[in-house]
Structures are given as structure tokens and as C-alpha cells.
């Protein structure tokens, strides 16, 4: 059992009971079984009520881009679903039996040494450098509670794959990859904005990863606010019809304005800082987007515990077509956000740079000796 869940399940279950009651209209008593009523819950001021703590955990394990063999098939067959169910259970076991400790480069190196084998090559990407390279204790890990039917997180274009990059974007992606893969990093700028604890951006804050997939929605007349656990990001979204900020004011999370279309919250975000973050895992997977990026997100509560989320990515300077990601986010008993003091605890950056300078010294001594 996830230790975090274990710690707080009692208190949160109580809070959630209260929250559910408060979300129902006082005049018409609604039976617990009437899920339709809860899915259509309104705030006292009449907006659809999507408040609460949500997680994208259930999309854990769904590839971002669809593997080519699926073609335009968007959902798994029953057999494929059974296979994924196994992976889901395995990831639960993975978490309960010590989690990514077994996947950490440090542990892998130690094990190889004990067996008298050569140390494994330094991994890249997940479990590679930075935050991802840290041995993650099992109780941090998150996993899907039920298998997703989706063959990919990208649902449009119909093949579930990213549209072709523009030549400029491909050049930016190549430059970024070169920087990230430098054998001995020269500076903190070699690492992603996530590794540097700056942000994961809008997309990175909701795409599921190994832990910290929680977000919390708070509403008041004229505003919806979303706070994301990882790197403690927050968005204040006016829903009163005001226009975007001046294009001279740019930011990592962009300028979000929203409105309600029936029971759907539609959020349009612009004014991004360009050429830094990507619309991908942890805000670093993929080509850096341009300052013209426009994201359109939709949040629709379809059941008491499910909000359908979708995000349309429009950035003609980066992608040759628009594309869309869609998956459900769910409310889970006992799931709670915690303070993620990323930068405050970022000893890794200091240590990695310190190690890199030591590597520089070794290399310099080696080349001096070779002369």
C-alpha cells in the first residue's frame, strides 16, 4: 500500500464525504447512487463543479505517441487490455516491492560490481539524469488503478502520432538533444527546466509520470484555479470573459483565460515564453515550442470521479498541424497533494555539477599525461 495513501486516507475520506455533500444542491436531496447528479454537480453560484483533487495516474503506461503497429486503432482489444491489466498490477507490485530502487543507475552499478560485471552504461531519459536518476523509494511511485483502453495519449491526428516538425523546430530539437546528451555537462543549463526545478509547464504538469500526478481544482465566482503538486505550479484562470494579457507579458505557464461551454471548462492559454519548454513529458519531451503556442484545454466532468481532459496544441512554427491529447483524470480515495519543495531540496544539481567539474579535471590530467 502506498505509504502516503496509508497516512492520510482516513482524514481525506472524511473530507471527501463532506465535500460531496456540500457539492450537492441543498434543496434536492440526492441519493448516493445517483451518479448522474454528481457528474452534473453545480457550485452554489451555478457553474459546473469540477472541484477536488484529481490525478492522471490511470493513463500511466499509455504511450504518448501510438506505436505504429496499431495504425489508426485508438483502443485496445480485450486481449491487449488483459495484457495491460498485468502491467498495471505489475507496477503496483513494483511500487510495493521497493519501486524504482531497482531501476536506479546507482543501484544497478552497485549490483554489477557485486556480480563482478562491468557497470551498465549511464541511462538516458527516464531514470537518466537529474531528478529522474535519483533512486525513487517505492512509496513515492504512482500507478494506474485500472487499465486504460487507449493505445496512445495523442488522439488526433488519427494515427496518434505527432505531426511532422517544421525544419526550424527540428533544428531546435536537435540542438536541445545535443545539449542534454553532452558527456560532461558544462552548466545547469544542460538540464531540463524540470531538473532545474523551474517548472514542467502546462502540458508537463498533467501528463502522467512516475509520481506526483496530482492536481487540485478550486473554484470561486469568476475564477477557476488549478494547482499541480509537482514543482508546486499554479494557474489562476479568469472565467469572466476578460481578454488575454498584453503579449509583452510572457511566462512559462502562459496566460490562461477560460469560459464554460455547457458543463465543459474551456481554457485557452497563450503568452508563453518560446524556445524553452516542450509539450511533452515533464515539459522537456519533444521539440521546444515557439512563443506562438496556443493551448486549448477542455475539462468535462463525466462521472462523480472522472473528468475528461483534452488539450489541443496549436503552434504552426513548431508543428505542421494541430494535434490533440486526451485522457481522463480521476478522483481516488486517499489521494492528496503534498508540498513539493523541488528547488529547495535540489541537492542533485549541485552534486551533478560538482561531479562534472571533477570529470573535467580527470580529463585534463589524462590529456596532460598523454602528451
Amino acid at each position, binding site marked *: 500500500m502506498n505509504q502516503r495513501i496509508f497516512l492520510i486516507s482516513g482524514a481525506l475520506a472524511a473530507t471527501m464525504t463532506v465535500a460531496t455533500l456540500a457539492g450537492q444542491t441543498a434543496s434536492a436531496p440526492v441519493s448516493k447512487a445517483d451518479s448522474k447528479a454528481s457528474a452534473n454537480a453545480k457550485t452554489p453560484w451555478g457553474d459546473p463543479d469540477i472541484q477536488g483533487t484529481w490525478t492522471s495516474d490511470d493513463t500511466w503506461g499509455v504511450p504518448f505517441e501510438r506505436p505504429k503497429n496499431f495504425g489508426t486503432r485508438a483502443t485496445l482489444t480485450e486481449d491487449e487490455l488483459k495484457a495491460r491489466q498485468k502491467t498495471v498490477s505489475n507496477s503496483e507490485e513494483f511500487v510495493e516491492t521497493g519501486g524504482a530502487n531497482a531501476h536506479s543507475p546507482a543501484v544497478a552499478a552497485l549490483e554489477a560490481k557485486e556480480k563482478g560485471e562491468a557497470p551498465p552504461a549511464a541511462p538516458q531519459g527516464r531514470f537518466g539524469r537529474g531528478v529522474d536518476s535519483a533512486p525513487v523509494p517505492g512509496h513515492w511511485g504512482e500507478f494506474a488503478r485500472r487499465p486504460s483502453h487507449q493505445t496512445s495519449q495523442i488522439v488526433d491526428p488519427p494515427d496518434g502520432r505527432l505531426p511532422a516538425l517544421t525544419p526550424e523546430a527540428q533544428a531546435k530539437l536537435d540542438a536541445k538533444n545535443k545539449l542534454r546528451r553532452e558527456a560532461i555537462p558544462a552548466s545547469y543549463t544542460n538540464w531540463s527546466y524540470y531538473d532545474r526545478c523551474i517548472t514542467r509547464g502546462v502540458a508537463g504538469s498533467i501528463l502522467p509520470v512516475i509520481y506526483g500526478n496530482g492536481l487540485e481544482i478550486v473554484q470561486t*465566482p469568476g475564477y477557476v484555479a488549478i494547482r499541480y503538486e509537482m514543482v508546486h505550479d499554479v494557474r489562476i484562470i479568469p472565467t469572466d470573459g476578460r481578454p488575454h494579457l498584453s503579449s509583452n507579458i510572457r511566462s512559462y505557464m502562459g496566460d490562461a483565460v477560460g469560459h464554460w461551454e455547457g458543463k465543459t471548462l474551456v481554457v485557452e492559454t497563450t503568452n508563453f515564453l518560446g524556445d524553452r519548454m516542450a509539450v511533452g513529458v515533464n515539459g522537456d519531451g519533444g521539440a521546444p515550442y515557439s512563443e506562438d503556442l496556443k493551448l486549448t484545454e477542455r475539462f468535462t466532468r463525466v462521472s462523480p470521479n472522472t473528468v475528461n481532459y483534452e488539450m489541443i496544441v496549436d503552434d504552426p512554427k513548431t508543428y505542421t498541424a494541430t494535434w490533440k491529447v486526451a485522457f481522463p483524470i480521476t478522483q481516488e480515495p486517499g489521494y492528496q497533494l503534498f508540498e513539493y519543495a523541488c528547488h529547495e531540496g535540489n541537492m542533485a544539481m549541485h552534486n551533478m555539477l560538482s561531479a562534472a567539474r571533477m570529470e573535467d579535471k580527470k580529463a585534463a590530467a589524462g590529456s596532460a599525461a598523454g602528451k
Partner: protein
Amino acid sequence: MQLCIKSSNCMFLAATCAAVLFSMIPAAAQTAAPRIPRMADGKPNLTGLWQAMGTADFDLEDHSAAAGPFYQLGAIGAIPPGQGVVEGGEIPYKPAALEQKKKNFANRLKEDPEIKCYMPGVPRAAYLPYPFQIIQSNKDILFAYEYATTNRLINMGKRQEAATDTWMGTSNGHWEKDTLVVDVTGFNGNAWFDRAGDFASDSLHVVERYSLLDANTMNYEATIEDPATFTQPWKINVILYRHREKDARLLEFKCVEFTEQLLYGDLVRKPSK
């Protein structure tokens, strides 16, 4: 009333009459509370963009103007004078803690969490020289601070004990008449109170009281208790002002990248000569 056909009309008429009667009472005789925005349930609505004026973040206590640490910054880098916000004037430090505060100030360029873009803790978040947004729902209340994108949720439901120590603590709120009272525990003891080095330990307990004085100003009071650091609990009082500029919004001040050269610059590869 004969004109009163529907009950809603009756209420409207009654309200109008009351307003007329009320306005006939000489102003001086009125003791009614000022008009403040309220939620549907009658609770004060604190939603808005707020900011403290003054110099509490420089020093909670009375202080004279002084030069700053960098002469290159001239007047920009100087410390403005300020009247303290501590009730009784002085923070009741234990002797060893007072020595620590002085050390903190002497080492502030290395130690002040604000310089390093670390989370400000409570109460410092309330009087930093940056605005913060309150989003008050019918359930919990969100505080989103511009500085470092810090945010905290005030749990208005059943009390939750702190699961672990954190920078911003664990906040449980309730209403006492029109005052939002927030009880904050579970601090990690790393945050400071100001740039003067005022601080507390991880046994800190803060009780904040937010009371609207009128629609656009709010009294902020914090009672600070930490037997490891202070001889007795003490209080600060700060007025918070609503940003009333057209379309005023919380902007993004992600300061981490403004601190990286300071924190890691000595470990960046020097260009070869």
C-alpha cells in the same frame, strides 16, 4: 403593502424601504459594519489580489534607513526605513535565539531563503513585496503567491494534522464571525520572517487572522508561538490592500532561474583561455 403581489417584489420593496429609512439615520449614529463582499453562504469573500505595503519584509521591527549590501545598486539597493509591525515593538527572543538572528543577518547573502528563491513560509508570504491571489471556494481556500509560485490550500473541512514538515506548513482554517482564522503547524523551520534574519524553529505554530476592514482592505494578524525560540507568543499586524487596477492579475515570478548563477555558478565550466 398593496403593491406587493409576488413575494420577491415584497422583499424588494421591504429592502428599498429599509434602505430609505436607514439613509435617514444620521451617518454618525450608524454603527453598521462596512459593506464587504460576501459568498452565497454569507461568509466574507476574500477572493482577490492582495498585497501589503510597507517594509515588514525588510525588518518586522522598527528600523532606520540603511545602506544595502551592494554599493553598486545605490538608492535601489538601500533599506527603506520602517515602523515595525510587531505588537509591543520587539520580538521576545530567547538569548541564544537572538544571537542566531544576528548571525543570520550577518550571513544573509548566503542564508536568506528569499535570496535563494526558497518558499517564504508563514507569515512571511503575507507581506513579501509581491501580490498574492486568494481564491475562496465554497469548500477550501487557495492562497497563490506571486513570489516563487508558492501556494497553499487552507483546509476548511475537518482538521487535518500535518503529515510531514514543510516550508509552508499545514493550514487548517475556520471562521470566527467574519474573521478567517488559519491555524498553521508542521513547519520545517527553514523559513525566515524577513531580510533582517528573524526566524523560528520547526516547533513554530502560527495562527493567522484575516478580517476585511472594508471591501478593499484587510487586517492581517499573526500570532507566533515557538517555545524553542521565543520567551512568549507574539503578534504582528499588517494591513493588506486589494489591487484595484483594471484587470490586475497575479503574474508569474519563477525566480529559481534568477538564482542559479548565484547557487551553482562556481561549478559551471569556465571558458578555456
